[in-house]
Protein backbone atom coordinates (compact mmCIF):
# COMPACT_ATOMS: atom_id res chain seq x y z
CA UNK A 1 0.00 0.00 0.00
CA UNK A 2 1.37 3.45 -0.86
CA UNK A 3 2.23 5.51 2.18
CA UNK A 4 -0.02 8.49 2.57
CA UNK A 5 1.20 11.60 4.27
CA UNK A 6 -0.41 12.18 7.60
CA UNK A 7 -3.09 14.80 7.31
CA UNK A 8 -4.38 16.59 10.32
CA UNK A 9 -7.66 18.05 9.30
CA UNK A 10 -9.14 21.00 11.08
CA UNK A 11 -12.79 21.61 11.32
CA UNK A 12 -14.54 24.80 12.17
CA UNK A 13 -16.95 23.99 14.91
CA UNK A 14 -18.84 27.22 15.09
CA UNK A 15 -18.60 30.95 15.46
CA UNK A 16 -15.58 32.03 17.42
CA UNK A 17 -14.66 28.53 18.62
CA UNK A 18 -11.25 27.17 17.91
CA UNK A 19 -11.09 24.47 15.30
CA UNK A 20 -10.04 21.12 16.67
CA UNK A 21 -7.42 18.97 15.08
CA UNK A 22 -8.41 15.57 13.85
CA UNK A 23 -6.66 12.31 13.09
CA UNK A 24 -8.05 10.36 10.14
CA UNK A 25 -8.91 6.77 10.98
CA UNK A 26 -8.46 5.71 7.34
CA UNK A 27 -11.38 3.38 7.97
CA UNK A 28 -13.63 3.31 4.92
CA UNK A 29 -16.34 5.96 5.17
CA UNK A 30 -15.81 6.69 8.84
CA UNK A 31 -13.79 9.86 8.42
CA UNK A 32 -16.63 11.41 6.42
CA UNK A 33 -19.09 10.66 9.18
CA UNK A 34 -16.67 12.16 11.70
CA UNK A 35 -16.03 15.13 9.48
CA UNK A 36 -12.32 14.47 9.24
CA UNK A 37 -11.51 11.86 11.85
CA UNK A 38 -11.11 11.38 15.57
CA UNK A 39 -10.12 14.22 17.88
CA UNK A 40 -6.34 14.38 17.88
CA UNK A 41 -4.57 13.66 21.15
CA UNK A 42 -7.91 13.06 22.83
CA UNK A 43 -9.91 10.06 23.90
CA UNK A 44 -12.60 8.38 21.87
CA UNK A 45 -14.84 5.73 23.31
CA UNK A 46 -16.28 2.88 21.27
CA UNK A 47 -19.22 1.26 23.00
CA UNK A 48 -20.95 -1.91 21.90
CA UNK A 49 -22.14 -5.35 22.88
CA UNK A 50 -19.95 -8.39 22.27
CA UNK A 51 -19.61 -9.01 18.56
CA UNK A 52 -20.45 -5.48 17.53
CA UNK A 53 -17.06 -4.86 16.01
CA UNK A 54 -15.23 -2.81 18.62
CA UNK A 55 -12.03 -4.82 18.58
CA UNK A 56 -11.97 -4.87 14.79
CA UNK A 57 -12.35 -1.11 14.73
CA UNK A 58 -9.55 -0.75 17.26
CA UNK A 59 -7.26 -3.05 15.31
CA UNK A 60 -8.02 -1.31 12.05
CA UNK A 61 -7.34 2.08 13.64
CA UNK A 62 -3.82 1.14 14.70
CA UNK A 63 -3.14 -0.92 11.63
CA UNK A 64 -4.04 1.78 9.12
CA UNK A 65 -2.30 4.35 11.24
CA UNK A 66 0.87 2.29 11.24
CA UNK A 67 0.67 1.98 7.46
CA UNK A 68 0.33 5.72 7.17
CA UNK A 69 3.31 6.74 9.24
CA UNK A 70 1.72 6.82 12.68
CA UNK A 71 2.95 4.05 14.93
CA UNK A 72 0.59 2.73 17.52
CA UNK A 73 0.07 0.57 20.56
CA UNK A 74 -2.71 -1.93 21.07
CA UNK A 75 -3.40 -2.94 24.65
CA UNK A 76 -5.91 -5.76 24.88
CA UNK A 77 -7.55 -6.83 28.07
CA UNK A 78 -9.68 -9.58 26.69
CA UNK A 79 -8.20 -11.34 23.71
CA UNK A 80 -4.84 -13.01 23.66
CA UNK A 81 -2.16 -11.60 21.39
CA UNK A 82 -2.15 -14.81 19.40
CA UNK A 83 -5.87 -14.51 18.77
CA UNK A 84 -5.56 -10.83 17.86
CA UNK A 85 -2.82 -11.51 15.34
CA UNK A 86 -4.84 -14.34 13.82
CA UNK A 87 -7.95 -12.19 13.52
CA UNK A 88 -5.93 -9.41 11.95
CA UNK A 89 -4.56 -11.89 9.48
CA UNK A 90 -8.06 -12.80 8.29
CA UNK A 91 -8.34 -9.21 7.06
CA UNK A 92 -4.99 -9.41 5.37
CA UNK A 93 -3.33 -7.30 8.07
CA UNK A 94 0.19 -8.43 8.79
CA UNK A 95 0.68 -7.45 12.40
CA UNK A 96 3.93 -9.34 13.03
CA UNK A 97 5.74 -7.46 10.27
CA UNK A 98 4.66 -4.12 11.62
CA UNK A 99 5.68 -5.24 15.10
CA UNK A 100 9.13 -6.16 13.87
CA UNK A 101 9.48 -2.78 12.24
CA UNK A 102 8.54 -1.10 15.47
CA UNK A 103 5.45 0.54 14.03
CA UNK A 104 3.03 -1.51 16.07
CA UNK A 105 3.24 -2.79 19.61
CA UNK A 106 0.79 -5.28 21.06
CA UNK A 107 0.38 -5.77 24.77
CA UNK A 108 -1.81 -8.18 26.61
CA UNK A 109 -3.20 -7.00 29.92
CA UNK A 110 -4.48 -10.31 31.13
CA UNK A 111 -3.94 -12.39 34.22
CA UNK A 112 -3.25 -15.92 33.00
CA UNK A 113 -5.17 -18.58 34.92
CA UNK A 114 -2.07 -20.08 36.48
CA UNK A 115 -1.21 -16.86 38.28
CA UNK A 116 -2.06 -16.72 41.95
CA UNK A 117 -3.78 -13.58 43.10
CA UNK A 118 -3.55 -12.47 46.67
CA UNK A 119 -4.79 -9.06 47.63
CA UNK A 120 -5.23 -5.85 45.65
CA UNK A 121 -3.34 -4.95 42.54
CA UNK A 122 -2.60 -2.02 40.28
CA UNK A 123 -2.34 -1.47 36.53
CA UNK A 124 0.61 0.82 36.85
CA UNK A 125 3.13 -1.53 35.22
CA UNK A 126 1.01 -1.52 32.06
CA UNK A 127 1.05 2.23 32.06
CA UNK A 128 4.77 2.23 32.60
CA UNK A 129 5.31 -0.13 29.68
CA UNK A 130 3.12 1.74 27.27
CA UNK A 131 4.59 5.01 28.35
CA UNK A 132 8.10 3.74 27.72
CA UNK A 133 7.19 2.13 24.41
CA UNK A 134 5.27 5.17 23.25
CA UNK A 135 8.38 7.28 23.67
CA UNK A 136 10.58 4.66 22.07
CA UNK A 137 8.32 4.26 19.04
CA UNK A 138 7.24 7.89 18.88
CA UNK A 139 3.75 6.46 18.88
CA UNK A 140 0.78 8.54 17.90
CA UNK A 141 -2.10 6.14 18.41
CA UNK A 142 -3.19 3.85 21.18
CA UNK A 143 -6.08 1.45 21.54
CA UNK A 144 -7.20 -0.05 24.83
CA UNK A 145 -9.56 -2.85 24.10
CA UNK A 146 -12.18 -4.16 26.54
CA UNK A 147 -11.58 -1.76 29.39
CA UNK A 148 -14.59 -3.20 31.16
CA UNK A 149 -12.69 -6.47 31.47
CA UNK A 150 -9.68 -4.64 32.89
CA UNK A 151 -11.70 -3.27 35.68
CA UNK A 152 -13.09 -6.58 36.74
CA UNK A 153 -9.63 -7.18 38.14
CA UNK A 154 -10.40 -4.88 40.98
CA UNK A 155 -12.67 -5.61 43.90
CA UNK A 156 -13.51 -2.16 45.14
CA UNK A 157 -15.35 0.52 43.13
CA UNK A 158 -13.15 3.05 44.85
CA UNK A 159 -10.10 1.39 43.43
CA UNK A 160 -11.62 1.28 39.98
CA UNK A 161 -12.25 4.97 40.05
CA UNK A 162 -8.73 5.68 41.20
CA UNK A 163 -7.13 3.55 38.53
CA UNK A 164 -9.46 4.97 35.86
CA UNK A 165 -8.54 8.46 36.82
CA UNK A 166 -4.87 7.70 36.55
CA UNK A 167 -5.34 6.04 33.21
CA UNK A 168 -7.22 8.91 31.69
CA UNK A 169 -4.88 11.47 33.17
CA UNK A 170 -1.92 9.67 31.71
CA UNK A 171 -3.66 9.47 28.32
CA UNK A 172 -4.45 13.15 28.37
CA UNK A 173 -0.82 14.05 29.03
CA UNK A 174 0.64 11.50 26.67
CA UNK A 175 -0.32 13.31 23.51
CA UNK A 176 -1.57 10.06 21.99
CA UNK A 177 -4.87 9.81 20.18
CA UNK A 178 -6.63 7.08 22.08
CA UNK A 179 -9.46 4.75 21.34
CA UNK A 180 -10.97 2.85 24.25
CA UNK A 181 -13.50 0.09 23.80
CA UNK A 182 -16.00 -1.14 26.30
CA UNK A 183 -19.28 -2.92 26.66
CA UNK A 184 -22.21 -0.96 27.96
CA UNK A 185 -24.00 -1.74 31.22
CA UNK A 186 -21.29 -4.20 32.16
CA UNK A 187 -19.81 -3.02 35.34
CA UNK A 188 -21.86 -2.66 38.49
CA UNK A 189 -22.60 -0.03 39.60
CA UNK A 190 -23.18 0.65 35.91
CA UNK A 191 -23.86 4.32 36.03
CA UNK A 192 -20.69 5.35 37.83
CA UNK A 193 -18.47 3.60 35.35
CA UNK A 194 -20.31 4.72 32.27
CA UNK A 195 -20.85 8.30 33.32
CA UNK A 196 -17.21 8.65 34.13
CA UNK A 197 -16.00 7.42 30.77
CA UNK A 198 -18.68 9.13 28.77
CA UNK A 199 -17.89 12.47 30.29
CA UNK A 200 -14.13 12.03 29.98
CA UNK A 201 -14.20 11.02 26.35
CA UNK A 202 -14.32 13.71 23.69
CA UNK A 203 -15.98 11.45 21.20
CA UNK A 204 -18.29 8.48 21.71
CA UNK A 205 -19.24 6.05 18.97
CA UNK A 206 -21.83 3.34 19.46
CA UNK A 207 -21.80 0.09 17.52
CA UNK A 208 -24.86 -2.03 17.24
CA UNK A 209 -26.08 -5.20 15.59
CA UNK A 210 -29.78 -5.52 14.85
CA UNK A 211 -31.83 -8.28 13.34
CA UNK A 212 -34.31 -6.92 10.83
CA UNK A 213 -36.63 -9.41 9.20
CA UNK A 214 -34.29 -12.26 10.05
CA UNK A 215 -31.28 -10.58 8.50
CA UNK A 216 -28.61 -9.13 10.72
CA UNK A 217 -27.37 -5.65 10.09
CA UNK A 218 -24.72 -3.49 11.72
CA UNK A 219 -25.07 0.17 12.56
CA UNK A 220 -22.78 2.79 13.98
CA UNK A 221 -23.72 6.17 15.33
CA UNK A 222 -21.83 9.00 16.88
CA UNK A 223 -23.34 9.75 20.27
CA UNK A 224 -21.08 12.65 21.04
CA UNK A 225 -18.25 14.64 19.47
CA UNK A 226 -17.10 17.56 21.50
CA UNK A 227 -16.10 20.56 19.47
CA UNK A 228 -17.09 19.20 16.11
CA UNK A 229 -19.96 18.67 13.80
CA UNK A 230 -20.57 15.11 12.76
CA UNK A 231 -23.04 12.92 10.94
CA UNK A 232 -25.91 12.38 13.33
CA UNK A 233 -27.63 9.42 11.73
CA UNK A 234 -27.20 5.73 12.16
CA UNK A 235 -24.83 4.46 9.53
CA UNK A 236 -24.98 0.89 8.33
CA UNK A 237 -21.67 -0.90 7.95
CA UNK A 238 -20.28 -4.32 7.35
CA UNK A 239 -17.16 -6.10 8.40
CA UNK A 240 -15.84 -7.27 5.07
CA UNK A 241 -12.75 -9.31 4.38
CA UNK A 242 -10.79 -6.09 4.15
CA UNK A 243 -12.05 -4.57 7.37
CA UNK A 244 -14.85 -2.18 8.20
CA UNK A 245 -16.79 -0.77 5.26
CA UNK A 246 -19.43 1.83 5.83
CA UNK A 247 -22.15 2.39 3.31
CA UNK A 248 -21.93 5.58 1.28
CA UNK A 249 -24.13 8.26 2.77
CA UNK A 250 -27.28 9.52 1.18
CA UNK A 251 -27.83 11.53 -1.91
CA UNK A 252 -26.05 14.66 -2.70
CA UNK A 253 -27.62 15.55 -5.99
CA UNK A 254 -24.95 18.10 -6.58
CA UNK A 255 -22.53 15.26 -7.07
CA UNK A 256 -24.58 13.53 -9.74
CA UNK A 257 -23.07 13.71 -13.19
CA UNK A 258 -25.28 15.51 -15.72
CA UNK A 259 -26.92 13.59 -18.55
CA UNK A 260 -24.49 12.56 -21.22
CA UNK A 261 -25.11 11.89 -24.84
CA UNK A 262 -28.06 10.08 -26.32
CA UNK A 263 -27.72 6.33 -26.60
CA UNK A 264 -29.94 3.98 -28.54
CA UNK A 265 -32.25 1.60 -26.73
CA UNK A 266 -31.63 -0.86 -29.49
CA UNK A 267 -35.08 -0.22 -30.94
CA UNK A 268 -35.17 2.71 -33.36
CA UNK A 269 -38.91 3.37 -32.98
CA UNK A 270 -38.53 3.48 -29.20
CA UNK A 271 -35.69 5.94 -29.60
CA UNK A 272 -38.05 8.10 -31.62
CA UNK A 273 -40.70 7.93 -28.92
CA UNK A 274 -38.07 9.06 -26.43
CA UNK A 275 -37.07 12.03 -28.52
CA UNK A 276 -33.78 10.43 -29.50
CA UNK A 277 -33.03 7.57 -27.13
CA UNK A 278 -31.89 7.13 -23.57
CA UNK A 279 -29.39 9.50 -21.98
CA UNK A 280 -26.05 8.22 -20.76
CA UNK A 281 -25.88 8.57 -16.93
CA UNK A 282 -29.64 8.69 -16.52
CA UNK A 283 -31.87 6.23 -14.72
CA UNK A 284 -34.47 4.43 -16.79
CA UNK A 285 -37.27 2.39 -15.30
CA UNK A 286 -39.10 -0.31 -17.26
CA UNK A 287 -42.31 -1.21 -15.48
CA UNK A 288 -44.98 -3.74 -16.16
CA UNK A 289 -46.66 -6.96 -15.14
CA UNK A 290 -44.91 -10.28 -15.45
CA UNK A 291 -44.37 -11.36 -19.02
CA UNK A 292 -44.77 -7.95 -20.60
CA UNK A 293 -41.28 -7.92 -22.04
CA UNK A 294 -39.21 -5.90 -19.60
CA UNK A 295 -36.25 -8.26 -19.54
CA UNK A 296 -36.26 -8.45 -23.31
CA UNK A 297 -36.28 -4.69 -23.58
CA UNK A 298 -33.29 -4.52 -21.25
CA UNK A 299 -31.44 -7.22 -23.07
CA UNK A 300 -31.98 -5.55 -26.42
CA UNK A 301 -30.24 -2.51 -25.05
CA UNK A 302 -27.46 -4.64 -23.59
CA UNK A 303 -26.84 -6.28 -26.94
CA UNK A 304 -26.71 -2.92 -28.67
CA UNK A 305 -24.20 -1.31 -26.37
CA UNK A 306 -22.04 -4.40 -26.02
CA UNK A 307 -21.80 -4.55 -29.78
CA UNK A 308 -20.34 -1.07 -29.61
CA UNK A 309 -17.73 -2.35 -27.17
CA UNK A 310 -19.19 -0.91 -24.01
CA UNK A 311 -19.43 -2.76 -20.70
CA UNK A 312 -22.55 -3.73 -18.83
CA UNK A 313 -23.10 -5.15 -15.37
CA UNK A 314 -26.41 -7.00 -15.29
CA UNK A 315 -27.65 -7.66 -11.78
CA UNK A 316 -30.28 -10.35 -11.87
CA UNK A 317 -32.32 -10.83 -8.74
CA UNK A 318 -34.82 -13.17 -10.31
CA UNK A 319 -33.32 -15.38 -12.95
CA UNK A 320 -30.06 -17.19 -13.05
CA UNK A 321 -27.59 -15.90 -15.64
CA UNK A 322 -28.02 -19.02 -17.73
CA UNK A 323 -31.81 -18.79 -17.70
CA UNK A 324 -31.66 -15.15 -18.64
CA UNK A 325 -29.39 -15.75 -21.61
CA UNK A 326 -31.53 -18.63 -22.77
CA UNK A 327 -34.85 -16.85 -22.44
CA UNK A 328 -33.96 -13.94 -24.69
CA UNK A 329 -32.48 -16.00 -27.51
CA UNK A 330 -35.95 -16.85 -28.79
CA UNK A 331 -36.41 -13.18 -29.55
CA UNK A 332 -33.16 -12.92 -31.37
CA UNK A 333 -31.04 -11.45 -28.61
CA UNK A 334 -27.75 -13.22 -28.08
CA UNK A 335 -25.87 -12.25 -24.96
CA UNK A 336 -23.54 -15.15 -24.55
CA UNK A 337 -20.77 -13.92 -26.84
CA UNK A 338 -20.56 -10.68 -24.86
CA UNK A 339 -20.42 -12.55 -21.58
CA UNK A 340 -17.58 -14.61 -22.93
CA UNK A 341 -15.79 -11.57 -24.27
CA UNK A 342 -16.00 -9.95 -20.83
CA UNK A 343 -18.11 -6.95 -21.87
CA UNK A 344 -21.11 -8.28 -20.09
CA UNK A 345 -21.14 -9.55 -16.56
CA UNK A 346 -24.35 -11.10 -15.34
CA UNK A 347 -24.48 -11.32 -11.59
CA UNK A 348 -27.20 -13.53 -10.22
CA UNK A 349 -28.05 -12.86 -6.60
CA UNK A 350 -30.69 -13.94 -4.15
CA UNK A 351 -31.95 -10.85 -2.37
CA UNK A 352 -32.68 -12.68 0.86
CA UNK A 353 -29.25 -14.29 1.00
CA UNK A 354 -27.48 -11.48 2.80
CA UNK A 355 -28.14 -8.10 4.32
CA UNK A 356 -28.54 -4.97 2.25
CA UNK A 357 -25.09 -3.75 3.16
CA UNK A 358 -23.39 -6.87 1.87
CA UNK A 359 -25.28 -6.65 -1.43
CA UNK A 360 -24.40 -3.02 -1.76
CA UNK A 361 -20.72 -3.44 -1.00
CA UNK A 362 -20.46 -6.36 -3.37
CA UNK A 363 -22.02 -4.43 -6.22
CA UNK A 364 -20.03 -1.30 -5.51
CA UNK A 365 -16.82 -3.31 -5.55
CA UNK A 366 -17.84 -4.98 -8.81
CA UNK A 367 -18.62 -1.68 -10.44
CA UNK A 368 -15.32 -0.18 -9.31
CA UNK A 369 -13.41 -3.17 -10.58
CA UNK A 370 -15.24 -3.52 -13.89
CA UNK A 371 -16.03 0.14 -14.61
CA UNK A 372 -19.09 -0.54 -16.76
CA UNK A 373 -20.81 2.24 -18.65
CA UNK A 374 -24.21 0.78 -17.82
CA UNK A 375 -25.78 -1.23 -15.02
CA UNK A 376 -29.04 -3.16 -15.19
CA UNK A 377 -31.05 -4.11 -12.11
CA UNK A 378 -33.62 -6.79 -12.88
CA UNK A 379 -35.89 -6.49 -10.91
CA UNK A 380 -36.12 -3.84 -8.23
CA UNK A 381 -39.37 -5.40 -7.06
CA UNK A 382 -37.36 -8.47 -6.06
CA UNK A 383 -35.21 -6.30 -3.81
CA UNK A 384 -38.04 -6.18 -1.32
CA UNK A 385 -37.08 -9.71 -0.39
CA UNK A 386 -33.98 -8.17 1.13
CA UNK A 387 -35.13 -7.72 4.71
CA UNK A 388 -38.22 -5.75 3.75
CA UNK A 389 -39.44 -2.68 1.90
CA UNK A 390 -37.45 -0.15 3.82
CA UNK A 391 -34.24 -2.06 3.40
CA UNK A 392 -34.78 -2.39 -0.32
CA UNK A 393 -35.51 1.29 -0.66
CA UNK A 394 -32.36 2.04 1.25
CA UNK A 395 -30.33 -0.25 -0.98
CA UNK A 396 -31.70 1.19 -4.20
CA UNK A 397 -31.30 4.80 -3.21
CA UNK A 398 -27.73 4.30 -2.20
CA UNK A 399 -26.79 2.22 -5.20
CA UNK A 400 -28.48 4.53 -7.71
CA UNK A 401 -26.82 7.48 -6.04
CA UNK A 402 -23.48 5.75 -6.37
CA UNK A 403 -24.10 5.09 -10.08
CA UNK A 404 -25.25 8.63 -10.80
CA UNK A 405 -22.16 10.05 -9.17
CA UNK A 406 -20.12 8.07 -11.62
CA UNK A 407 -22.17 8.87 -14.68
CA UNK A 408 -23.21 5.26 -15.13
CA UNK A 409 -26.54 4.63 -16.87
CA UNK A 410 -28.92 2.48 -14.89
CA UNK A 411 -31.80 0.50 -16.26
CA UNK A 412 -34.20 -0.91 -13.72
CA UNK A 413 -37.07 -3.29 -14.24
CA UNK A 414 -40.04 -3.19 -11.93
CA UNK A 415 -42.63 -5.90 -11.78
CA UNK A 416 -45.98 -4.34 -11.07
CA UNK A 417 -49.03 -6.18 -9.81
CA UNK A 418 -51.72 -4.95 -12.13
CA UNK A 419 -52.68 -1.81 -10.30
CA UNK A 420 -52.63 1.35 -12.29
CA UNK A 421 -50.98 3.14 -9.42
CA UNK A 422 -48.43 5.63 -10.66
CA UNK A 423 -46.55 5.34 -7.43
CA UNK A 424 -46.12 1.63 -7.79
CA UNK A 425 -45.21 1.87 -11.42
CA UNK A 426 -42.55 4.47 -10.90
CA UNK A 427 -40.89 2.47 -8.20
CA UNK A 428 -42.29 3.19 -4.77
CA UNK A 429 -40.37 6.16 -3.56
CA UNK A 430 -37.27 6.05 -5.70
CA UNK A 431 -39.05 8.11 -8.35
CA UNK A 432 -36.90 11.12 -7.56
CA UNK A 433 -33.92 9.16 -8.89
CA UNK A 434 -35.72 7.88 -11.95
CA UNK A 435 -35.47 10.01 -15.09
CA UNK A 436 -37.40 7.97 -17.62
CA UNK A 437 -40.32 5.61 -17.11
CA UNK A 438 -41.46 3.21 -19.79
CA UNK A 439 -44.61 1.25 -19.07
CA UNK A 440 -45.39 -2.10 -20.71
CA UNK A 441 -48.83 -3.66 -20.53
CA UNK A 442 -51.30 -6.05 -22.08
CA UNK A 443 -54.67 -5.32 -23.38
CA UNK A 444 -57.20 -7.96 -24.07
CA UNK A 445 -58.87 -7.53 -27.40
CA UNK A 446 -61.74 -9.63 -28.78
CA UNK A 447 -59.63 -12.25 -30.44
CA UNK A 448 -56.18 -11.35 -29.37
CA UNK A 449 -53.95 -9.93 -26.66
CA UNK A 450 -52.02 -6.86 -27.60
CA UNK A 451 -48.92 -5.61 -26.06
CA UNK A 452 -48.65 -1.90 -25.34
CA UNK A 453 -45.79 0.42 -24.62
CA UNK A 454 -45.90 4.01 -23.46
CA UNK A 455 -43.56 6.63 -22.07
CA UNK A 456 -44.81 7.92 -18.74
CA UNK A 457 -41.94 10.20 -17.94
CA UNK A 458 -38.90 11.45 -19.74
CA UNK A 459 -36.78 14.04 -17.99
CA UNK A 460 -34.59 16.16 -20.15
CA UNK A 461 -36.53 15.59 -23.33
CA UNK A 462 -39.84 15.84 -25.04
CA UNK A 463 -41.41 12.45 -25.62
CA UNK A 464 -44.27 10.78 -27.35
CA UNK A 465 -47.48 10.59 -25.37
CA UNK A 466 -48.85 7.82 -27.51
CA UNK A 467 -49.68 4.33 -26.38
CA UNK A 468 -48.24 2.10 -29.06
CA UNK A 469 -48.73 -1.55 -29.79
CA UNK A 470 -45.70 -3.77 -30.04
CA UNK A 471 -44.89 -7.38 -30.72
CA UNK A 472 -42.19 -9.75 -29.68
CA UNK A 473 -41.02 -11.67 -32.68
CA UNK A 474 -38.14 -13.98 -33.21
CA UNK A 475 -36.09 -11.12 -34.49
CA UNK A 476 -36.83 -8.99 -31.49
CA UNK A 477 -38.95 -6.25 -30.08
CA UNK A 478 -41.02 -4.54 -32.77
CA UNK A 479 -43.11 -1.46 -32.15
CA UNK A 480 -45.96 -1.33 -34.60
CA UNK A 481 -46.87 1.75 -36.56
Amino acid at each position, binding site marked *: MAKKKEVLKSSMSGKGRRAIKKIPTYINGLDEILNGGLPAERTTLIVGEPGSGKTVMGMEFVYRGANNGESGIFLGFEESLKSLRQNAFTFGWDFPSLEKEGRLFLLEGRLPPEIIVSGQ*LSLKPLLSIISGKAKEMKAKRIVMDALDVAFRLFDEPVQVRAELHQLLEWLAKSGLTSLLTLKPREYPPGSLFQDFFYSMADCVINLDTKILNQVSTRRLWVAKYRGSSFGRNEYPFIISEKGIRTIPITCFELRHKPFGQRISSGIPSLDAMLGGGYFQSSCILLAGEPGTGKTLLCSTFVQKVCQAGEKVLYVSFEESPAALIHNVTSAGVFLEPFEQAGNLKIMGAMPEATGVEEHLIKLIDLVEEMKPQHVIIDAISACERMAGKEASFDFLMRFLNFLKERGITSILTNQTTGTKSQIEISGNGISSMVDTVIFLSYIQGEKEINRLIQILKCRGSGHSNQIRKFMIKDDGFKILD
Partner: protein
Amino acid sequence: MKKERISDKPRSPAHYHFRLFVAGDEINSRKAQETLHQICTRYLPGQHKIEIIDVLKDYKAALTNEIFFAPTLVILSPPIQTKIVGSLNDPQKILDVLGLAKTKEDE
Protein backbone atom coordinates in the same frame (compact mmCIF):
# COMPACT_ATOMS: atom_id res chain seq x y z
CA MET B 1 10.62 -24.51 65.67
CA LYS B 2 10.50 -24.35 61.94
CA LYS B 3 8.94 -27.21 60.05
CA GLU B 4 9.72 -27.88 56.43
CA ARG B 5 7.82 -30.22 54.17
CA ILE B 6 10.10 -32.48 52.17
CA SER B 7 9.63 -31.44 48.56
CA ASP B 8 9.93 -33.65 45.52
CA LYS B 9 13.49 -32.61 45.07
CA PRO B 10 16.28 -34.71 46.58
CA ARG B 11 17.32 -31.84 48.90
CA SER B 12 15.42 -28.86 50.17
CA PRO B 13 16.87 -25.62 48.83
CA ALA B 14 19.27 -23.80 51.02
CA HIS B 15 18.49 -20.43 49.54
CA TYR B 16 15.29 -18.55 48.66
CA HIS B 17 15.51 -15.88 46.04
CA PHE B 18 12.57 -13.54 45.59
CA ARG B 19 12.06 -10.87 43.02
CA LEU B 20 9.28 -8.43 43.78
CA PHE B 21 8.14 -6.06 41.05
CA VAL B 22 6.66 -2.93 42.54
CA ALA B 23 5.08 0.20 41.15
CA GLY B 24 6.95 2.91 43.01
CA ASP B 25 5.45 3.84 46.30
CA GLU B 26 1.91 2.77 45.69
CA ILE B 27 0.10 1.22 48.57
CA ASN B 28 -0.33 -2.37 47.36
CA SER B 29 3.32 -2.62 46.49
CA ARG B 30 4.34 -1.35 49.91
CA LYS B 31 2.04 -3.83 51.62
CA ALA B 32 3.46 -6.69 49.62
CA GLN B 33 6.99 -5.64 50.43
CA GLU B 34 6.22 -5.56 54.14
CA THR B 35 4.48 -8.92 54.08
CA LEU B 36 7.30 -10.52 52.18
CA HIS B 37 9.86 -9.18 54.60
CA GLN B 38 7.87 -10.51 57.50
CA ILE B 39 7.62 -13.98 56.00
CA CYS B 40 11.30 -14.08 55.20
CA THR B 41 12.33 -12.91 58.65
CA ARG B 42 10.07 -15.39 60.38
CA TYR B 43 10.51 -18.46 58.23
CA LEU B 44 13.67 -18.07 56.25
CA PRO B 45 16.10 -16.08 58.31
CA GLY B 46 19.50 -15.83 56.68
CA GLN B 47 18.31 -17.97 53.81
CA HIS B 48 16.64 -15.43 51.65
CA LYS B 49 17.37 -12.71 49.18
CA ILE B 50 14.79 -10.14 48.11
CA GLU B 51 15.22 -8.09 44.97
CA ILE B 52 12.96 -5.12 44.46
CA ILE B 53 12.41 -3.89 40.95
CA ASP B 54 10.50 -0.70 40.41
CA VAL B 55 8.70 -0.99 37.07
CA LEU B 56 7.93 2.69 37.05
CA LYS B 57 11.65 3.32 36.73
CA ASP B 58 12.41 0.34 34.51
CA TYR B 59 9.65 -0.47 32.04
CA LYS B 60 11.85 -2.79 30.05
CA ALA B 61 12.21 -5.09 33.02
CA ALA B 62 8.44 -5.23 33.22
CA LEU B 63 8.24 -6.11 29.54
CA THR B 64 10.88 -8.81 29.54
CA ASN B 65 9.45 -10.40 32.65
CA GLU B 66 5.87 -9.99 31.43
CA ILE B 67 4.87 -8.03 34.49
CA PHE B 68 1.62 -6.21 33.81
CA PHE B 69 0.23 -5.79 37.29
CA ALA B 70 1.82 -4.67 40.50
CA PRO B 71 2.94 -5.92 42.85
CA THR B 72 4.07 -9.21 41.33
CA LEU B 73 6.17 -11.67 43.23
CA VAL B 74 8.37 -14.01 41.24
CA ILE B 75 10.08 -16.82 43.07
CA LEU B 76 13.43 -17.53 41.42
CA SER B 77 14.67 -20.04 43.90
CA PRO B 78 13.28 -22.60 44.48
CA PRO B 79 12.51 -22.57 40.75
CA ILE B 80 8.74 -22.57 41.10
CA GLN B 81 7.05 -21.42 37.90
CA THR B 82 4.46 -19.31 39.63
CA LYS B 83 3.85 -15.64 39.92
CA ILE B 84 1.86 -14.19 42.75
CA VAL B 85 0.12 -10.95 41.99
CA GLY B 86 -1.31 -8.59 44.57
CA SER B 87 -0.62 -7.01 47.91
CA LEU B 88 -0.14 -10.41 49.52
CA ASN B 89 -2.84 -9.91 52.11
CA ASP B 90 -2.91 -13.65 52.72
CA PRO B 91 0.60 -14.83 53.66
CA GLN B 92 -0.62 -18.44 53.77
CA LYS B 93 -0.73 -18.49 50.00
CA ILE B 94 2.96 -17.82 49.75
CA LEU B 95 3.74 -20.36 52.40
CA ASP B 96 1.71 -22.93 50.49
CA VAL B 97 3.52 -22.17 47.29
CA LEU B 98 6.89 -22.50 49.01
CA GLY B 99 5.84 -25.65 50.74
CA LEU B 100 6.20 -24.18 54.18
CA ALA B 101 3.77 -24.70 57.00
CA LYS B 102 2.86 -22.09 59.54
CA THR B 103 4.81 -22.17 62.77
CA LYS B 104 3.16 -22.94 66.05
CA GLU B 105 3.22 -19.25 66.95
CA ASP B 106 0.87 -18.47 64.08
CA GLU B 107 -1.62 -21.19 64.76
